[in-house]
């Protein structure tokens, strides 16, 4: 591939979008705030939960599907994690895998509805988005699960934040990288290996590229597809654990609208929603673009209304460039 054709590719467009956002930050640096290391550390940490969700979303979108339930799974996982570790005193070694299992189970339900019962992924996961939010509220009793544990007398008893919360919401590598960012990196690497180096990843691309051809080539379409939703749910559960650790509580309302951010990230990364194309590298670019855009708007204290309009504009611009590529 020549340099010229690479520049016209959609990876290049995603890089360009990120570069533009970073340039924006350099210009509107908010009295030098954008130039501090801590700003970047925070920007990366804030983007990490979205990024973890986007990794799972990428797997599903590559099959030509979509998962709207990730925000609710995040909330369910955050609630379960807080309940089990803070209130019930479970060890992290038990609670973390259990939460991931819960997320995977929701994913299995989404995937089953989408591929076995042939409900459109949008509808299947929309219904689960609502249903799982309901479960999260039921389990939490409608309130945040925090270190104030309801006592029998109607009052509260107060407990310490479990060690695992502090461990996740800490910093590593000389204090310059948040643990959450590291977790995001691990999720991204695992997703990359699965997509780019694992048989299953190749099957996902084949399904998204041409489901019928894949099926007639012996690809286990149903199992592979369900697997994508399972992985997406599991990653959303990881994101939920990170969210709970950062909030020091499990909020059943957490993650509302995050599914849309995750989809926006994938789109800004230049991944076609039709499936069969894209990769984790682009998702990473999309995550950084959205993360930095949010950070720059925040340090400049841009009013909420303007933020919404600017973010919307960026997404439309990304989709327009994507469409131009598809046409050429």
């Amino acid at each position, binding site marked *: 591939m020549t340099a010229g054709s690479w520049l016209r590719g959609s990876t290049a467009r995603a890089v360009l979008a990120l570069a533009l956002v970073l340039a924006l930050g350099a210009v509107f640096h*908010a*009295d030098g*705030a*954008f130039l*501090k290391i*801590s*700003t970047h550390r*925070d920007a990366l940490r*804030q983007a990490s939960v979205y990024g973890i969700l986007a990794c799972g979303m990428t797997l599903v979108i590559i099959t030509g599907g979509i998962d709207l339930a990730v925000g609710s799974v995040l909330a369910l996982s955050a609630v379960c994690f807080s309940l089990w570790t803070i209130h019930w005193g479970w060890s992290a070694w038990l609670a973390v895998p259990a939460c991931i299992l819960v997320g995977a189970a929701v994913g299995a339900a989404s995937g089953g509805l989408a591929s076995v019962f042939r409900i459109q992924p949008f509808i299947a996961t*929309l*219904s689960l*988005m*609502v*249903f799982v*939010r*309901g*479960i999260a*509220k*039921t389990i939490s009793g*409608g*309130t*945040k699960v*925090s*270190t*104030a544990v*309801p006592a029998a007398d*109607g*009052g*509260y008893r*107060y407990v310490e934040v479990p060690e695992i919360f502090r461990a996740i*919401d800490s*910093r590593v590598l000389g204090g310059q990288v948040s643990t959450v960012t590291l977790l995001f990196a691990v999720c991204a690497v695992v997703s990359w290996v699965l997509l780019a180096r694992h048989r299953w990843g190749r099957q996902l691309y084949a399904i998204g590229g041409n489901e019928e051809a894949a099926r007639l080539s012996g690809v286990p379409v149903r199992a592979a597809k369900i697997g994508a939703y399972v992985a997406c749910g599991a990653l959303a559960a990881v994101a939920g654990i990170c*969210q709970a650790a*950062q*909030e*020091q*509580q499990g*909020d059943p*309302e*957490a993650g*509302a*609208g995050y599914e*849309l951010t995750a989809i926006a990230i994938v789109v800004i990364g230049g991944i076609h929603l039709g499936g069969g194309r894209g990769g984790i590298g682009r998702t990473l670019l999309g995550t950084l673009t959205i993360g930095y855009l*949010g*950070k720059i708007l*925040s*340090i400049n*204290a841009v*009013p*909420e209304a303007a933020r919404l309009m600017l973010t919307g504009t960026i997404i439309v611009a990304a989709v327009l460039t994507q469409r131009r590529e598809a046409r050429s």
Partner: protein
Amino acid sequence: MNSREPTSSSVLHLFGRVAAAVVAVAALASCGPSTEPGEVEPAEPRWRIGMSQCNLGEPWRVQMDADVRSAAADHPEIEVLFKDAQNDVLKQRAHVEEFVSAGVDAILISPKEAAPLTEPVAKAMEAGIPVVVIDRKVLGDRYTTFVGADNHEIGLAAGRWLVEALGGKGRVVELKGLMTSTPAQDRHSGFREGIAGSDIEVVFEADMKWLEPEARREMESALARFEEIDAVYAHNDPGAHGAYLAARAAERESEMLFVGIDALPHEGVMYVKQGMLDATFEYPTGGREALELVLATLGGEAPPREVTLGSRLFTEQNVEQGGAPIASQGEIQ
């Protein structure tokens, strides 16, 4: 929090009822009838009171029901029937009508919206049942008493308190609630009135939409931008808590004060006890007061048309004693 609207997308809103129904079914399956049995005393109660809550998704409203319940526990002669309308106006309307046909002796209602509930409340009054309206009003004057707090007053008190605590001078970050909601607007304007005339400067303000993760994010930006911050005023306690976590992650939590609002026992009050927040101002639920008013009415007294609830301030010094009441005009007693 009293009149917060859900911030979720319209799709969520649309399907919210489905979710609510699912939760309701689950709740029903696990706990039996939605009216709580705990209040039934062995002795035949003399008064039966219906309590219609517009939703139990917000911790503050859960607290309101808890306050009513604990007030009722002091009176063995009454029984309270609790209903949760799950943010559905029509459901809440039905609840009021059910109370009327069940012939309760009095009704407590914390309405979701004024207009649709005005008529049912008036019908109850016509049936001779006194109705105490809590937190949000209904239209007109066909109710017995309104009980509510004043967000502007509370914001004012927070402002005055900060002026005093900072010695009249300082750089403050204001983390606002959803600015399209009335409570956020009032807490903002009250606060600005409270700090007016002092040398306190709001250097950074952002809309954190009542959400803790948003508050933490915005606070991180403020910390990156300003080397010196003297205080954070957040429109609710989770917001202040999020700001505290951000400052602690930057190892700057000791350089500034953290002030929140609501003072729920398991949120703001706990944060103050744990030394995270320096002050929180109670936004009273009015549950206990409303029940006392109902009892007085049933006892033949003529209640006032409107009761404005006073707030309480919780600080490290007074939190164990249950805080200190605040008089009007934000003066701390």
